[in-house]
């Protein structure tokens, strides 16, 4: 016989009670470890999904310009051997808009990949069925399902037509920006065939089409060119460097192989002129490139002659007009010896005319001319300006004045054989063209007719795209040789990664992002918190009940000389054994619980995750952590129940007198508990009040205040129950009062039951009140939709201002704005867009590169939407926090506004924090959060000011996001009209309320999950209540038998049990409900004060029903216990 054998016999002999303890611990461990497994599973699933969709891709090189396919081989050759890439694949990756021709179903934001057989070879997929026909298309499973497309169906795939010329420049095309390919579905790819390919992590269905690379290149006029290269990992034997080293090596390789042509620059040799000229495909040389040219020229000792050439609509001299003439801004000393008279105070611009122009205008030196020209304003308007010129000289068309190369390539103009064939992207009056103009064009082409100073030209025509159309460089030696040297030198000076190339470590970022924006493990621990607490309380309760059954034994051990420490050690070891067994059971249960949760996330709660691709990943380390935590908590809570036994005298233990009776709480103890209750109430109410006054977050106020109020109520209940146990009554008793009095005989147990019910009720009631119903008032400008009823994204940017007649006219919308027509009275707010990742809770992956929007000044001025917090300082900013987008920070940070929900739960930022874009590059962009929107439709993106947007994202031109405030009853008609007329732009309209509701779905799903698990906690709580009632009845068998012996019938006994149950259940429900409602008052008042009375009532009634059912067993035992046997029992 040893202590070990005593413990073993204790554990096995009292197996029934111990089984309940083991079950309680098992549930707690299962829930805790299961929650951790859920987190690991979500992360594992996201990681697996991202890796599956990447295929063989390690890094991705993208370019804003299309570059020759051969760059792929050059990249591999340029990389150092030890860090070589396995393979490099050229392809086209663009965004598209797809229409299922027969049904008209449409899908926007579709990934269009232009590929050939090399794509599948790259990924190691072998299949003879993967040969794309010229007119064929492969479709991803997700897109096929969305469009209900099958093999042989016809799809219209519309993509943007690449153009180096910005659409917001005069010569940028503003219409016909896309190309539509009519294709036949060859097959729907399966994931094993890279049907889900995506190099940006996303958990939703991959929506993509695969078209013939050659066909796509021809359609968008980029034969032999691509905009993307996929780089695979090298073989393991070759890998030496870590990811950062390989990324740096890839960037260095890119720098080595990229040519000036790849970054949209060209050096044209003009040996006849003794110069070579640097020009940009965009038509204008931007300031950064101009600086690089200057510095390179200085290093090489080259003369620099910058040029700014522009197309003027008219040159007028009185009634004489010369139409559509090129005007060149340069160093006037190149064309004249006359004094330019460049006085800044002059109201005229000194110019030199060529002879032809002078003759045509009958102009001579000293005459004033009017120059009329178009300007394209960034807001989307074509304006016409005039300025006065003064002729200072007339020169013959020879030498520097006879240089057609001074003009850049104007799309639609330069290549024209005659003037009437011109096709500029602006209004062109053919009626102005005279035969002599055609003669000039035939003889002199793009030779400028007017020359002015560079400074004057830049004052008139410089834009954010640049202030030069070319830079001429004059070498001392051979032009061709020096031009080659310059090309090489400039290629080193300009970093291609700064002008449109990006090397994207796709695999590394995907793995990093798959840790998730939302820590599901932590969330499910929160959700399961009360379930865990309930299980632990139950385990403790059953252990305590078991110990109380053995009080006499404990007394015997004390009487035979066991010191308290030995008793403590005995039961602690027993608790440890039971908890460990429970932990092992719980580990098995954890897998089941986690699988249940994952199944729930794929089905009921799919709204929270947006994918059905989540599966269980069993991570032993998390099982261990959960089991360890659960077992430790169980041992702690179980042994906590033993502490009250220690001071009980052995005599009382021998008599089986429980501690509460043996050592009754004194009046001082009751007073102390009352004081604690009052203190907790005051502090709790204070927290609620502080949250209501917006001095602390509503969440902190809710949890802190609510829990303190709950603690106050429980302490008060404890004090009241102990005080009640001393009370007597002189009034005639009722049977139900006996039941109530029974609840006061064991205050500890009663408070435990009340605590179980109250805490679960607290969670369920509070969570239900937080449910967001609907998508907000669509017409309220301060609501989450800002008073807008519709929002739209476009595939192709719209440069025209739809609020002007000219803009509407250009887009053929004018008639729709007539009175009675769909768009009459509808305002469209527009936003610039830099595409990126979804920053809302709908995206499970961490958004490293979120979508950026930039509103116009007109939108900002309207001060729509509501803000949760901001850095507003002035009265104007407080009244309209949108104005913070114009704030200037000394450190260069760009002000940004985001939705409060996205900030808190997806980006994990708050107002005042910074978000770093391009953080892995040497050109990071620091965005500073200056304001947070309340529950808005902008949860997917960050918003910055338009000026800042144009500065940091110059390549994203035009407007691609729109908000419309159509009347609710007109939204259908307005949507149809806009989508029809603007179909070429891929205009895709959705309801603003629906968008907001989709965000609410995530939050409501989380709340539903919380409620479900809280409900399970409540179920455990009622189970505990039932167990306590049953135990109480069993302990009072002799009393109940006596009552029956003196004439109480079954109904009386049932009433007693029910009364006791009703007291405990009611106290728990009231405490939990009252505390929840008081604590969430700040939050639900903020939402308008409405409570979901019906659903709350249903919930509470359900709890009451379940609670009473739980007492059924106790009632049956009370009624059916054998009378004589109970009377005779010792």
């Amino acid at each position, binding site marked *: 016989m040893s202590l070990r054998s005593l413990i073993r016999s204790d554990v096995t002999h009292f197996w029934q009670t111990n089984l309940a303890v083991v079950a309680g611990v098992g549930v707690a461990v299962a829930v805790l470890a299961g929650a951790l497994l859920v987190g690991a599973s979500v992360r594992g699933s996201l990681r697996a999904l991202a890796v599956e969709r990447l295929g063989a891709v390690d890094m991705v090189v993208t370019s804003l310009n299309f570059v020759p396919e051969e760059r792929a081989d050059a990249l591999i050759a340029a990389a150092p051997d030890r860090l070589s890439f396995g393979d490099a694949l050229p392809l086209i990756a663009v965004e598209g808009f797809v229409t299922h021709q027969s049904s008209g179903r449409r899908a926007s934001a579709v990934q269009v990949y232009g590929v050939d057989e090399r794509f599948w070879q790259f990924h190691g997929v072998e299949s003879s069925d993967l040969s794309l026909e010229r007119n064929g298309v492969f479709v991803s499973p997700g897109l096929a399902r969305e469009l209900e497309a099958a093999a042989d169906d016809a799809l219209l795939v519309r993509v943007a037509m690449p153009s180096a010329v910005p659409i917001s420049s005069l010569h940028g095309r503003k219409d016909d920006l896309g190309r539509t390919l009519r294709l036949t579905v060859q097959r729907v790819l399966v994931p094993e065939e890279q049907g889900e390919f995506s190099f940006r992590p996303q958990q939703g269905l991959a929506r993509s089409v695969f078209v013939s690379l050659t066909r796509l290149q021809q359609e968008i006029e980029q034969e032999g060119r691509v905009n993307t290269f996929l780089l695979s990992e090298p073989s393991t034997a070759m890998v030496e460097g870590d990811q950062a080293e390989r990324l740096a090596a890839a960037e260095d390789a890119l720098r080595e192989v990229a040519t000036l042509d790849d970054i949209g620059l060209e050096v044209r040799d003009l040996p006849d002129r003794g110069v070579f000229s640097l020009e940009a495909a965009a038509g204008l040389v931007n300031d950064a490139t101009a600086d690089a040219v200057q510095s390179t020229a200085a290093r090489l000792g080259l003369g620099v002659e910058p040029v700014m050439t522009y197309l003027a609509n008219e040159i007028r001299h009185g009634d004489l007009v010369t139409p559509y003439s090129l005007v060149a801004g340069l160093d006037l000393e190149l064309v004249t010896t006359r004094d330019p008279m460049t006085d800044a105070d002059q109201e005229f611009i000194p110019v030199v005319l060529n002879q032809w122009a002078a003759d045509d205008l009958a102009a001579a030196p000293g005459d004033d001319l009017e120059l009329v020209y178009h300007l394209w304003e960034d807001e989307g308007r074509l304006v016409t300006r005039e300025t006065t010129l003064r002729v200072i000289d007339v020169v013959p068309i020879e030498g520097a004045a006879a240089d057609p190369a001074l003009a850049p390539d104007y799309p639609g103009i330069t290549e024209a054989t005659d003037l009437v064939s011109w096709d500029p992207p602006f209004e062109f009056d053919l009626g102005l063209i005279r035969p002599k103009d055609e003669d000039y064009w035939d003889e002199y082409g793009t030779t400028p007719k007017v020359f002015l100073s560079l400074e004057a030209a830049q004052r008139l025509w410089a834009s954010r795209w640049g202030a030069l159309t070319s830079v001429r460089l004059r070498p001392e030696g051979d032009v061709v040789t020096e031009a080659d040297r310059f090309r090489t030198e400039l290629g080193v000076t300009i970093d291609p990664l700064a002008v449109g190339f990006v090397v994207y470590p796709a695999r590394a970022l995907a793995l990093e992002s798959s840790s998730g924006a939302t820590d599901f493990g932590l969330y499910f621990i929160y959700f399961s918190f009360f379930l865990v607490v309930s299980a632990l309380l139950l385990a403790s309760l059953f252990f305590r009940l078991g110990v109380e059954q053995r009080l006499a034994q404990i007394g015997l051990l004390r009487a035979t*000389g066991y010191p308290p420490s030995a008793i403590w050690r005995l039961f602690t070891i027993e608790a440890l054994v039971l908890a460990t067994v429970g932990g092992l059971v719980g580990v098995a249960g954890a897998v089941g619980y986690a699988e249940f949760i994952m199944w729930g996330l794929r089905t009921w709660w799919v709204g929270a995750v947006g994918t059905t691709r989540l599966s269980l990943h069993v991570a032993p380390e998390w099982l261990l952590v959960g089991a360890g935590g659960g077992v430790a908590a169980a041992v702690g809570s179980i042994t906590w129940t033993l502490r009250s036994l220690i001071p009980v005298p052995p005599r009382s233990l021998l008599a089986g007198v429980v501690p509460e009776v043996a050592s009754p709480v004194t009046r001082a103890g009751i007073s102390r508990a009352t004081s604690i209750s009052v203190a907790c109430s005051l502090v709790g109410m204070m927290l609620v009040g502080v949250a209501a006054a917006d001095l602390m977050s509503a969440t902190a106020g809710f949890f802190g205040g609510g829990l303190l109020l709950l603690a106050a109520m429980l302490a008060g209940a404890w004090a009241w129950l102990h005080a009640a146990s001393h009370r007597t009554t002189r009034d005639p008793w009722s049977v139900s009062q006996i039941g109530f009095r029974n609840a006061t005989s064991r205050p500890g147990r009663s408070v435990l039951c009340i605590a179980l019910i109250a805490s679960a009720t607290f969670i369920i009631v509070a969570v239900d009140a937080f449910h967001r119903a609907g998508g907000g008032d669509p017409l309220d400008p301060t609501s989450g939709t800002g008073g807008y009823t519709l929002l739209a994204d476009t595939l192709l940017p719209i440069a025209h201002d739809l609020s002007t007649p000219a803009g509407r006219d250009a887009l053929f919308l004018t008639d729709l704005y007539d009175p009675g027509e769909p768009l009459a009275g509808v305002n469209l707010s527009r936003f610039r867009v830099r595409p990126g990742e979804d920053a809302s809770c709908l995206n499970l992956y961490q958004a490293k590169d979120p979508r950026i929007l930039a509103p116009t000044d007109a939108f900002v001025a309207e001060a729509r939407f509501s803000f949760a917090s901001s850095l507003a300082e002035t009265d104007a900013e407080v009244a309209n926090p949108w104005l913070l987008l114009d704030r200037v920070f000394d450190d260069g940070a760009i002000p940004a506004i985001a939705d409060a929900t996205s900030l808190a739960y997806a980006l994990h930022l708050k107002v005042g924090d910074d978000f770093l874009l391009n953080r892995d590059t040497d050109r990071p962009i620091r965005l500073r959060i200056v304001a947070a929107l309340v529950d808005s439709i902008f949860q997917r993106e960050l918003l910055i000011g338009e000026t800042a947007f144009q500065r940091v994202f110059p390549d994203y031109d035009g407007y691609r996001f729109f908000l419309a405030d159509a009347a609710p009853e007109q939204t259908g008609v307005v949507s149809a009209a806009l989508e029809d007329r603007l179909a070429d732009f891929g205009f895709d309209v959705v309801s603003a309320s629906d968008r907001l509701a989709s965000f609410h779905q995530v939050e409501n799903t989380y709340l539903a999950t919380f409620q479900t698990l809280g409900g399970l906690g409540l179920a455990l709580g009622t189970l505990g209540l039932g167990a306590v009632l049953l135990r109480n009845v069993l302990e009072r068998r002799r009393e109940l038998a006596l009552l029956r012996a003196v004439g109480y019938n079954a109904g009386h006994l049932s009433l007693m049990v029910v009364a006791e149950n009703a007291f405990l259940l009611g106290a728990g429900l009231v405490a939990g409900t009252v505390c929840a409602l008081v604590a969430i008052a700040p939050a639900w008042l903020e939402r308008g004060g409405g409570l979901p009375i019906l659903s709350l009532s249903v919930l509470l009634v359900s709890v009451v029903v379940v609670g009473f059912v739980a007492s059924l067993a106790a009632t049956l035992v009370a009624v059916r216990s054998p009378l004589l046997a109970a009377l005779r029992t010792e």
Partner: protein
Amino acid sequence: MVGVNNVLEVKELSKHYPTPRGPLPILTDVSLVLHRGDSASIVGPSGSGKSTLLYILGALDPPTSGVVTLDGDNPFALAERELATFRNTRVGFVFQDHLLLPQCTVLENVLVPTLVTDTDPGATERARGLLEQVGLTERIDHRPAELSGGERQRVALARALIREPLLLLCDEPTGNLDQGSADAVSSLLFGLHKAQQTILVVVTHNELLADRCETRYRLNEQHLDTVRR
């Protein structure tokens, strides 16, 4: 076991219990002296405090006032650990409800008091010997549920004597037994008492058992009177 003076001495012992209505006196100025080998019975009406006095003598309940010494030691002056050792080595207690551990065998129940000592060589031998003396050798591996009331009380008696205590206290040892079993247990009790020369104190309603003790006390209205010596 030879102690210092082998005497149980009680001087002016009083005991009252606190109640919401004020202290409830149970014992007042109780005094007695017993030597090794003495046997004493305590009789009195129900609720007179007999068991209370017994529990105080067994150091299971402290007196409100007065002194109890056994073998020169006042157990209530000892620290908790020493008090436990005192109970373990100096006192054997037989309860009316035997209080056997249902999950342990007969032999294990007898050995329960020996588990808290560092070493007690021969404990198992002594246990077997005691069980043989109480006539339960054949039931050594049985559990209490398999024994009759008398047999359980015999096991309890063996358990009380396993540590060869100086003081043997019995609280209604035959209270739950029929006459035959009671007689058997009584005989065993006194036989073992004589063999081990304990100081035996018995609280009982059983006149025959009370008569077998050399000294008879009566508790009446909180006072202990000597009826026969």
